[in-house]
């Protein structure tokens, strides 16, 4: 493998990895705040891609589409939290896991009713001509995705560190009861954790659409996002970013090293291995109970 090829692969890995990182981030935030693990996140990404498609078909300029998709995500997240999640937030883990799975299937079913399974495509904001730099080819869409991912990650980090709501979210994640006694509205925290998470999800859909096209199976991304979240340790924001990029890189390089037949198996074998050897991830703290 030449250096150029390796670098070119690294670029490809980082660009798909950015999307995985966004999905992981969207999973981590409500899990951190309320302990609810959202298996519907993949379908929320799909939803975001279709929302972007509709807004683009209305001939809106890209920045407006971007903001529109973001707002749809915020409102959608609040709706899901209020109607479906809040009644069961204290239910057993089994209920929560199956319920979020079911919510994903509902979104998928609704999208299938409206759009069928014919694929569509969406143009990126900067065209498809690759930029040449130092003998390497850079897809402008991939650079844009990577930049957005970095921006979102640092925005989320800053949010948790400096804003009142972010601090409240951290307090709630440590102890909802204590936080409530300190005057924090736990419901508000839950609502915004979902709003932020689904907004990241829908934006991820908008970003990934030019790269992989729009079809009902975009939601499969969640499997990679899950692995990224596991690598990152489920509760760590930088962990989600690093996990996502790691999954992207591993997948891309595995494609060259073990051949494309087994390329797809590698992430899942890794997931199993990681869950057995180090379930708390590489960045998380040991939250798992051994029995």
């Amino acid at each position, binding site marked *: 493998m030449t250096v150029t090829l390796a670098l070119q692969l690294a670029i490809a890995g980082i660009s798909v990895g950015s999307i995985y990182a966004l999905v992981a981030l969207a999973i981590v935030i409500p899990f951190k705040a309320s302990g609810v693990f959202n298996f519907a996140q993949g379908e929320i990404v799909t939803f975001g891609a279709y929302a972007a498609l509709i807004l683009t078909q209305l001939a809106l300029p890209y920045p407006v589409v971007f903001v529109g998709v973001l707002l749809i995500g915020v409102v959608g997240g609040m709706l899901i939290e209020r109607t479906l999640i809040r009644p069961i937030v204290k239910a057993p883990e*089994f209920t929560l*896991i199956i319920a979020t799975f079911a919510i994903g*299937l509902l979104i998928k*079913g609704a999208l299938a009713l409206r759009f069928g399974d014919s694929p569509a495509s969406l143009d990126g904001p900067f065209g498809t001509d690759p930029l040449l730099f130092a003998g390497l080819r850079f897809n402008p869409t991939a650079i844009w995705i990577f930049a957005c991912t970095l921006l979102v990650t640092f925005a989320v980090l800053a949010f948790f560190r400096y804003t009142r709501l972010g601090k409240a979210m951290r307090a709630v994640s440590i102890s909802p009861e204590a936080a409530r006694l300190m005057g924090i509205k736990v419901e508000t925290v839950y609502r915004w954790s979902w709003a932020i998470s689904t907004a990241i999800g829908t934006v991820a859909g908008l970003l990934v659409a030019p790269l992989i096209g729009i079809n009902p199976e975009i939601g499969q991304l969640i499997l990679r996002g899950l692995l990224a979240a596991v690598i990152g340790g489920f509760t760590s924001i930088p962990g989600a970013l690093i996990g996502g990029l790691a999954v992207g890189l591993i997948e891309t390089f595995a494609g060259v090293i073990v051949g494309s037949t087994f390329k797809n198996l590698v992430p899942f074998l890794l997931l199993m291995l990681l*869950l057995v050897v180090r379930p708390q991830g590489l960045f998380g703290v040991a939250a798992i109970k051994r029995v």
Partner: protein
Amino acid sequence: MSLRDVLPGMVVIAALAIFGAMVGSYPAYLVSLAMINIIAALGLNLLTGNSGQISLCHSSFMAIGAYGATLFTARYGLPFWISIPLAAAISALIGAALGFPARRLTGLYLALATLGFLQIVQLGIEEFADITGGVRGMKVPKPELLTGLRVSEYGIYLVVLGVCALAIWTARNILRSRIGRELNAIRLSPHAAQALGISVARVKLTAFALSAAFAGVAGGLMAVVVGFIDPVEFGVSASLRQITFIVVGGMGSVAGSVIGASVLSALPEVLRPVKEYSDIIYTLILLGFLLFVPRGLVTVWDRLVVLVRPAAPAIGPEERAR
């Protein structure tokens, strides 16, 4: 076991056998599928309902049963009544192998591990296309009793009926045995079970192997009844369908598996006029039961019984599971 216990079951089996002989092949086919769903649900219920281990890969064990049995028949000419038990045994072994890492995991982590396993099986089927037919699927040879001796459709119907009855009887007896009590014990309190000398790790392994064996049998039968298998049939939505069976019927109860699988197997036929909405309706039923009737239809039945016979002693679900 007294005659009074056996008689209702015998009557139902006889009635179903006569039903299969009288109706056309399509209704018999639907009833066969429902009975296969019951077998799968029984296995999942032992694992999830009784021992409390969440599994998103039950359909993978059906896949192992289906592909295993089909390959044994197609490649080595084994008749179905050898290839299906053989495939189910392999499925149970793989289930135990999965239980090995899974015994240290609970809840969410177990869900993720089983989801990962499901993907590995799916991709395995898709990637090894020269053996499994890949995404294009595989035709299942017509079932033969011995080489050259074909089994009629009604014959297979009777086989499925017999196996289903056997599966119900087995599940019921497992729950009444030491193993069944251990399964319930590690759900209710793993720590207390451990303190009482139950090896939680061993019981989890047993639960995974048992449920995989049931799923393997169901998968093998399904391959024979449907006559065609492809990986889509064994994806995560199939797993979720089986979870819906036990949630709607009743977790941790044999009757729950039977009721849930029967009722929901009839649903696609009922929903035929509104076919495009059937996925959504199915999911709404799952959500509705999860939120409002978490103990499933069996408790509705119990409530009715109490209404009719107010003097009957109130029995909690934990009591009933014994």
